[in-house]
């Protein structure tokens, strides 16, 4: 399979192998009516294996970037304009995340009062992403490639 250059859009590289499909799921389906090249489990000197995704004519917002960094810590995003890389982003996860993730505790107040922005204290231990809700204090652990 050949991955073509794109003129305008985004290239997501260094995605943990097999996690690309979760990255794609971050975008609303109606935005994905465009050319998408997705290569999975390809050789990578730094990761062993990795996924790469190129999507034409698409932008990415900061909340989605943060979710990408949670799903795949080494991901890089290149913004392509007129066939050239106009910006390269290596998204990181701040120690406290506001309004991006939902709390998995069904009894958390943020589930009943949706106008409240969720707030989590986060950390990473080996391959686990740990987040603690700052409202209900419940702690959740997820593996690479999952958000809940």
């Amino acid at each position: 399979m050949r991955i073509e250059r794109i003129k305008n859009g985004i290239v997501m590289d260094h995605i943990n192998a097999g996690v690309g499909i979760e990255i794609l799921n971050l975008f609303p389906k109606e935005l994905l009516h465009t050319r998408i090249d997705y290569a999975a489990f390809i050789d990578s000197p730094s990761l062993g294996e990795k996924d790469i995704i190129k999507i034409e004519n698409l932008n990415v917002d900061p909340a989605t970037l943060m979710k990408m960094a949670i799903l795949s810590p080494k991901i890089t995003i290149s913004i392509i304009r007129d066939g050239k890389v106009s910006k390269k982003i290596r998204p990181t996860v701040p120690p406290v995340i506001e309004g991006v993730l939902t709390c998995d505790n069904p009894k958390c107040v943020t589930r009943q009062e949706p106008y409240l922005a969720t707030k989590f204290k986060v950390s990473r231990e080996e391959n686990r992403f740990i987040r603690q809700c700052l409202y209900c204090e419940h702690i959740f652990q997820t593996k690479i490639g999952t958000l809940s």
Partner: protein
Amino acid sequence: MIMGSFTGRHIIDTADLSNEEILYLVDTANAIQNMGEKALDLARGKTLATLFWEPSTRTRLSFEAAMFNIGGQVLGFSEAQSSSVSKGETLADTIKTVSQYADIIAMRHPMEGSALAASHFSDSPIINGGDGAHLHPTQTMGDIYTLFKEKGRLEGLKVGFLGDMLFGRTIHTLARVLARFGVEMTFFSPEGLNIPSYVRADLEEKNATFSEFTDLEPTALKDLDMLYVTRIQKERFFSEEEYLRKKNSYVINRKILENAKNDLLVLHPLPRNEEISTDVDALPNAGYFRQAKYGLQMRMAIIASCLGRI
């Protein structure tokens, strides 16, 4: 100098209080008891709103009695059906509105984190009277005051907790404070009702000395200075069958107390079911009704302090 630092402050979590502030509230509760009728001036002209989205007669009455005892007035609701929630009002709107009527708000709400959320929208101090299975700081402060009144200290005490450690919010809050004062703790709970991971993580972070057991061996009580017993709450279970299976896992009676120290203090946040036999009530060890009195006195201290009147 702590005096005045409580003025206008929300009381959401005992974790927000320093050890010094906790001891200040204990001293304030004592001081108010020594004021006699002058205590009636502490909240004169002030109004407490008790907003209880879920029923809790005891906690609500304790808050209301506390406010009356320091000369204030009370308004509020005691179930969601009689509030605007039944008309679809958000928590934020209820709080924004009521904080225009009341100088201070005591609230109980079934959702965890609700008191913290409410504090973001309130113009008056919020006192958390229980947010789901999460926190119950005024119960804890009353329990701390009880330990000082009955044992004279916290440091070096050995304390046991018995019953539902998973949903028992009073236990979560109390254990986390006792850990800060060097109290050694033992938890006895049926399988599946152990302390939640976030409480265990917090105790470990504080380097607390604690152990957990699923069986209550009679000899397990022998070194304890205080045993804190809790009801296995029916409303926390998903099925009647599961509740019936677990509710009688542990019962404290005179016979089992023969294995304990003579001055073992037995506490319970009340209401109780069968987990403490009524034959214990006449023993000096039974501290649970005195505990209710000390809880009321502590709430007087908290309200007066947050109103900036002491």
